[in-house]
């Protein structure tokens, strides 16, 4: 169990003017599963490599349980990194790959064999020890890479895009496997991903990094309910941003006067609400936050249907169940309701 503290971590690559990572600070509690989320090139992998000691930071610190590890060599940090493309050693058998870390520690061969067997059982690949990595599917290679990392009982496990190379049906299987192994072994785990869905399904906490800077570090639901700014909300699929003024209780904008939840910021800002929280055909009796909208466009997306609506001149987006598509025709007018708890004001 290791508590990871990252303080003002900065990386400027030689020859670059802008930092690839700009003063990132994070406290990752022992045993937690944290996602570093951001688009490609935002500095996530750079962060991981600096935690692993594979890259030297320009400034800042990485500490485990309060002790700086910057001067520790990568092999002495107790950090294992699993790369996105697995990087199994192609000339070794699966068993030799899994046992690699133990062999480097000069553990006796008999013990390596036993522990490799146990580990392959744990990742549900008991009979594949003698195969070469090239004879495995992507999902199996991923599990071997995970087994190879976990067998050395790392203090910190780093995963680079752990689910993105997998088919949809394998993603959930792998998600469950990673979560259950991580919980059982209590390893502080950090993974990077560009996919907000991957971050949300896997992580206890998500750190969103945009342009080398951390935007928000929170539990996954808060990125939907309480995004810190428009870029953050947009990254999580937010579409509705209405300019206006808040007095802390009410928001005045082109949509009219809407009731805000407690704790809303005051002053000029943008009102945001998720398309899936817009209630259509809703008979809100009190009339609070109820508006009249016109359907401008209907977009069928298979698992959902998006409605492009106009409230007066202001465009907003709503998501409805695809089965309800017959109920809507372009040009229809209909009442919509914006529940106050789903509204949020950002600067």
């Amino acid at each position, binding site marked *: 169990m290791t508590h990871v503290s990252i303080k003002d971590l900065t990386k400027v690559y030689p020859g670059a003017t802008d930092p690839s990572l700009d003063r990132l600070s994070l406290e990752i509690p022992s045993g937690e599963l944290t996602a570093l989320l951001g688009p490609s090139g935002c500095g996530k992998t750079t962060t991981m490599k600096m935690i692993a000691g594979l890259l030297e930071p320009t400034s800042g610190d990485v500490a485990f349980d309060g002790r700086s590890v910057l001067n520790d060599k990568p092999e002495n*940090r107790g950090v*294992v990194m699993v*790369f996105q*493309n697995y990087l199994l050693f192609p*000339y070794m058998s699966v068993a030799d790959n899994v046992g*690699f870390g133990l062999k*480097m520690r000069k553990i006796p061969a008999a013990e390596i064999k036993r522990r490799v067997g146990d580990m392959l059982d744990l990742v549900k690949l008991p009979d594949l020890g003698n195969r070469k990595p090239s004879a495995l599917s992507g999902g199996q290679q991923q599990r071997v890479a995970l087994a190879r990392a976990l067998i050395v009982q790392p203090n910190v496990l780093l995963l680079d895009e752990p689910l993105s190379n997998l088919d949809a049906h394998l993603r959930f299987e792998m998600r469950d496997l990673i979560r259950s192994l991580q919980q059982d072994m209590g390893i502080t785990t950090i993974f990077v991903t560009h996919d907000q869905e991957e971050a949300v399904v896997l992580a206890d906490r998500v750190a969103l990094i945009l342009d080398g800077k951390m935007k928000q570090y929170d539990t996954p639901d808060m990125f939907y309910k309480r995004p810190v700014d428009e870029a953050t909300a947009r990254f999580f699929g937010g579409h509705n941003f209405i300019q206006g003024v808040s007095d802390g209780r009410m928001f005045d904008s082109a949509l009219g006067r809407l009731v805000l939840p407690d704790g809303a910021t005051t002053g000029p800002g943008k009102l945001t609400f998720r398309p899936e929280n817009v209630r259509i055909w809703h008979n809100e009796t009190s009339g609070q936050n109820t508006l009249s909208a016109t359907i401008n466009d209907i977009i069928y997306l298979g698992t959902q249907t998006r409605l492009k609506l106009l409230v007066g001149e202001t465009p907003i987006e709503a998501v409805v169940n695809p089965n309800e598509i017959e109920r809507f025709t372009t040009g229809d007018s209909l009442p919509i309701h914006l529940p106050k708890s789903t509204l949020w004001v950002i600067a």
Partner: protein
Amino acid sequence: MSDRVKIFLLLLPAMTIIVVLFFGGLGIGLMRSFNYMPVIGLTEPDLSAYVSVFTDREFYLSFLLTFHIAFTSTVISSILAIGAALLLRRSFVGRGIVNFLFQLNLTVPHLVGAIGMLYLFSQSGSFARLAHEFGMIQRPSDFPALVFDPYAIGIILQYVWKEIPFIGVIVLANMQSIGEDYESVARSLGASKWQTFRFVLLPLIFPGVLSASVMVFAFTFGAYEIPAILGANFPAALPVLAYRKYTDVDLAARPEAMAMAIIIALLSAVMIYFYVRYSRRRIRG
């Protein structure tokens, strides 16, 4: 025209050269080595040329010397080439220039290099004179024998000088295409720098090193001109010995020359086979 016919026609010129010149030459050489040479009235093939090669003590000495030249040159140039590639793949100021200088002698012919060696390292060469000038030796002829010497040091120096960039360029390209991520994985799994090199990088670049070093071995085992220029008179390297027999005034020595050429070819094939087998097991096993 079907694809098969097209491919056949396209390959024809190259195949003609290979079949006619290579196998043709090999066939004629083989016939002559069996003492079959109708021009001078030898029409009954036999093995006498082989018998006389294998009963000659000089042949064994020459074989040992040639093996020593090829093996030592290959091993030293492979090791130094890997070291050079490890340095050259890092980024540092002036890497472009260093890289250029490293590859420069690829364009220098072996023969020119050998003459350079002669000028520099012979007992009447530049280094001997310099050493004498600075009073390090009494006479230029006290300079250690580095050419025409029994240990073939001059020949090996020449091959090493010439083959390091050859193997190095192949290994460097290999390393660059592999990237450094495998090594990062190994380091994070607890391997030291040395372990990472030994158990990860070396096995990964091994196919490249193997093919380059096999080429170097085959070349140095069968090459004539360098041992002819820089080698001692006795024992001479096998190709030199074969050539001497071939140019012997006695036409009857030719079958022996041919037998020796065939033996050189077979020996290098057999040695390469065992080298590939053994080294693959050692590095990747």
